[in-house]
């Protein structure tokens, strides 16, 4: 077989990437063998169905992807630092901004949020696991398969290069003849199925598995946000599934859905993409709102202000999120009426969002605010995100958008929404729930240092882009002339991005440092928090709660602490838990290879692996697995070891 088809050649950076991938894989394999950890890996991680471990794996994957996407970003900023810079050529630059977008949204923001969801939601509602633990593992391994498939495109066959939006006809076989966009359609499809399953799983979990007494209107705000997010996932992701399937047909089987001839319609892709794509923005932002609500309430030592209007506004946002997609292409020429309609629906989203901002401010009011690292991120979110919000309203005005569309102004806007919105939130949540996952807090000094680097340098990086946009600089240009006058502000943005990178390096160093030196937390409640997840031990035993908590109001754990309401009544009984299984992992591996063979149109192996998928599904269908019980003695022993006081 001809290897030329697979290997990307002629770029020092790609050779470096190949070498580093090989070295890293070897290091992992040798390390696992040397430390005799293969069995441990398999038993404790690869086959786990425990929501907490799956959550940790999601977050590790998200952090890795953050660095992949971050390196892409730094390369782009380096290329744009000076006019007529020769660091990257057009093709390479196009691949990099495409993968940056896809990876940051789908393989960084999404898994980071889903990871936190996994860890926190069952604990917040007093459940032992999610509704379908095995399905949860399938979700994770499908996500992993998709993410890995997408990432190898850089060195095997070439990355997609038509932007993360993959507009047709640019992304068609005619204008993107490499396998890059095959990777796009297949890898996103596989990961997308995983996300859809997660949505189903968490809706059922939240609706059916809450502890006794936890009515819907007593749920913590993060749980509410996740419930609403999962409903959006349920309605939005099938659209992506369909769009990607049509794309696959166009690119691999001679379909003509989006082509320029034979009745194909390029605008159909743009519509389908954004019917999914705009709700997707809220899929990553609503859980962030939930995280901020938890953190701001905890560190103000107050309950959340305007709980009901917080819930109502999130429901309103979720409905509106499906009515605004055409604002991504006002310039497509659908006339003043249509543009007017979408302008108004888009601006309407500002209303419930504004309600939330004021409710947070009034939660802070009359509080006793302590400035911990997670709180700093949450507080920085308010003023920075508001800039993103108001520029969003500006972009919503169709007449003005004709001047902002496709420019750096837009780029600045969505980074002002997504970074303080989603990225700050997942970092804040990561610091906040870290002691719950691992039993110790991250170092506060290093945490704050990283925060200041990130918060300040974020603004230095992205604020200049507003002006560049108004001055006529479009997005996705790999170079610009000196005469354009874009040079100085671009240089400033590049300097900022270096500071941003330093911040993230400090953050990771903090994880390493804290693993080695941070004092262990024995209370299970290091922040003096309010919700149920803090009422059990840290790290959490696999069954979560020795006795199912009995909820009598909102902020149940706070009430238990302040008013001595007993949270755990009754005696310990044997706990029914699901068994581990290797099937989800194997299914993920098969899906990875199925995807790979499809990308390269290798039909025979693709059919073989496709049959493999069906066999795996059949195997699961005919399997009898009733789980197992943890005995009372074992629970008492575990509780004693963890210094439990609930017994």
């Amino acid at each position, binding site marked *: 077989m001809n290897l030329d088809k697979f290997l990307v050649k002629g770029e020092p950076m790609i050779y470096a990437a190949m070498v580093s991938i090989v070295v890293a894989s070897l290091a992992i394999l040798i390390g696992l063998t040397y430390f005799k950890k293969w069995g441990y890996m398999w038993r404790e991680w690869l086959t786990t169905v425990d929501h907490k471990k799956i959550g940790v794996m999601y977050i590790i994957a998200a952090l890795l992807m953050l660095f992949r996407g971050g390196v892409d970003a730094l390369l782009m900023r380096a290329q744009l630092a000076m006019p007529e810079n020769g660091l990257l050529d057009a093709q390479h630059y196009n691949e990099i901004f495409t993968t940056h977008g896809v990876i940051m949204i789908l393989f960084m923001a999404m898994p980071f949020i889903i990871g936190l969801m996994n860890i926190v939601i069952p604990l917040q509602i007093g459940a032992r696991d999610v509704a379908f633990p095995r399905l949860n593992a399938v979700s994770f391994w499908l996500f992993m398969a998709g993410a890995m498939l997408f990432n190898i495109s850089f060195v095997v066959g070439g990355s997609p290069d038509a932007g993360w939006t993959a507009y047709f006809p640019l992304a068609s076989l005619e204008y993107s003849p490499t396998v890059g966009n095959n990777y796009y359609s297949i890898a996103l499809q596989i990961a997308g199925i995983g996300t859809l399953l997660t949505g189903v799983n968490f809706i059922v979990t939240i609706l059916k598995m809450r502890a006794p007494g936890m009515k819907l209107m007593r749920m913590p705000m993060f749980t509410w946000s996740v419930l609403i997010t999962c409903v959006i996932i349920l309605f939005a992701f099938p659209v992506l599934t369909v769009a990607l399937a049509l794309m696959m047909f166009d690119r691999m089987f001679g379909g003509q859905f989006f082509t320029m001839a034979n009745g194909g319609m390029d605008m159909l892709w743009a519509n389908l993409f954004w019917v999914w794509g705009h709700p997707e923005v809220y899929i990553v932002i609503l859980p962030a709102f939930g995280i901020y609500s938890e953190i701001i309430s905890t560190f103000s030592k107050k309950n959340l202000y305007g709980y009901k209007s917080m819930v109502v506004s999130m429901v309103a946002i979720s409905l509106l999120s499906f009515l605004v997609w055409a604002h991504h292409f006002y310039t497509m020429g659908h006339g003043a009426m249509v543009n007017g309609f979408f302008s108004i629906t888009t601006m309407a989203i500002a209303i419930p969002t504004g309600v939330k901002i004021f409710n947070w401010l009034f939660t802070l009011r009359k509080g006793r605010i302590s400035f911990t690292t997670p709180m700093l991120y949450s507080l920085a979110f308010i003023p920075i995100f508001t800039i993103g919000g108001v520029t969003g309203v500006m972009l919503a005005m169709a007449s003005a958008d*004709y001047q902002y569309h496709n420019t750096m102004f837009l780029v600045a806007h969505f980074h002002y929404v997504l970074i303080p919105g989603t990225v700050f939130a997942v970092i804040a949540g990561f610091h906040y729930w870290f002691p719950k996952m691992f039993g110790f807090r991250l170092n506060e000094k290093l945490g704050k240092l990283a925060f200041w680097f990130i918060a300040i340098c974020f603004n230095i990086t992205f604020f200049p882009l507003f002006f560049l946009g108004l001055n006529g600089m479009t997005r996705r240009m790999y170079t610009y002339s000196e005469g354009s006058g874009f040079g100085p502000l671009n240089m400033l943005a590049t300097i900022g991005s270096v500071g941003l990178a330093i911040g993230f390096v400090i953050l990771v160093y903090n994880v390493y440092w804290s693993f080695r030196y941070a004092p262990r937390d024995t209370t299970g409640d290091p922040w003096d928090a309010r919700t149920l997840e803090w009422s059990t031990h840290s790290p959490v035993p696999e069954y979560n709660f020795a006795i199912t908590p009995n909820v009598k109001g909102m902020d149940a754990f706070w009430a238990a602490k302040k008013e001595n309401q007993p949270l755990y009544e009754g005696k310990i009984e044997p706990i029914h838990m699901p068994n581990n299984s290797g099937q989800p992992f194997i299914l993920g591996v098969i899906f990875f290879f199925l995807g790979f063979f499809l990308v390269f149109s290798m039909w025979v192996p693709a059919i073989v692996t496709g049959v493999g998928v069906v066999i795996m599904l059949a195997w699961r269908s005919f399997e009898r697995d009733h789980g197992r019980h943890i005995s009372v003695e074992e629970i008492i022993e575990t509780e004693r070891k963890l210094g439990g006081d609930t017994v």
Partner: protein
Amino acid sequence: MKKRGPLFLLFISVVLLLSGCSSNLLVLDPKGPVARTQSNTIIFSMIVMAVILLVVYILYVFVLTKYRATKANEGYEPPHEEGNKWLELTWTLIPVIIVIVLSVVTVRTTNAVEKVPAGYDNEKPLVIYAASSNWKWHFSYPEEGIETVNYVNIPTHRPVEFRLYAYGPIASFWVPQLGGQKYAMSDMVNTLNLVAESPGSFMGKNSNFSGKGFAHMEFEVLGMSPTDYTKWVDDVKKTAPKLTETEFDKLLNTELVGRKSYSSTHLSFRPAPEGENAGHHHGKANSTDNMDNMNMDDMDMSNMDHSQHE
């Protein structure tokens, strides 16, 4: 907290930049009525947004300074607050009013920029077809019977109707100082009405990513007085070569070309996708199935009659 310092600075710098140096930014330095409407809309919205930001920031600074944990308020137990109906209603209704105001402005200005600018609606617009291809712009003047590549000269104070379409990926036709952009697509024609009110050179570009040569898809719009314009048209007619079909195909297949002028247009043998030539005429789709054929559509259309543009 220290956080507010840099943010406040940023905010002040926005206000300063808007009031003082706005003339440096192309979008806020309009040279025609369409861009002026847009620039005014943008500045109006910026002022509204600045007021909103100010309210949020003042409240933010206030709560963070007043309610931070200090040694002095060690024993302070924050109260339990469910919320306040009237306050919550206030910060729902005021944004509703703001959105209504902005909606009215948006709908009116969007209507305005879609039409021929007010004051010019009685004049017969100059029609120019602007077609993108990888990676250049073709401008056809059907009335004058001339065609240019990568530059377009227009008379000042006369409405120009740009009819946009594409050979290949979606492009977006944008001349910031004359007015906002619109997509050029392969299967339909979009209309963009612009007027230049002062002579001069304006930067135009494709703003929608369309592949490798995208960053080089710039063109110059030269606004010239009507007499200069007529002179230039006559000049091109006299001196420039005819645009033949072979020459046009060669142009389409050349990735980057400089400026070109021709004394005939490609519309006769390669009509724009409008009217009967628009896309989505499923029944009439040509028989070519070969996806590798770059110029598959339009192939069988060359024998149709499009003399109306001649």
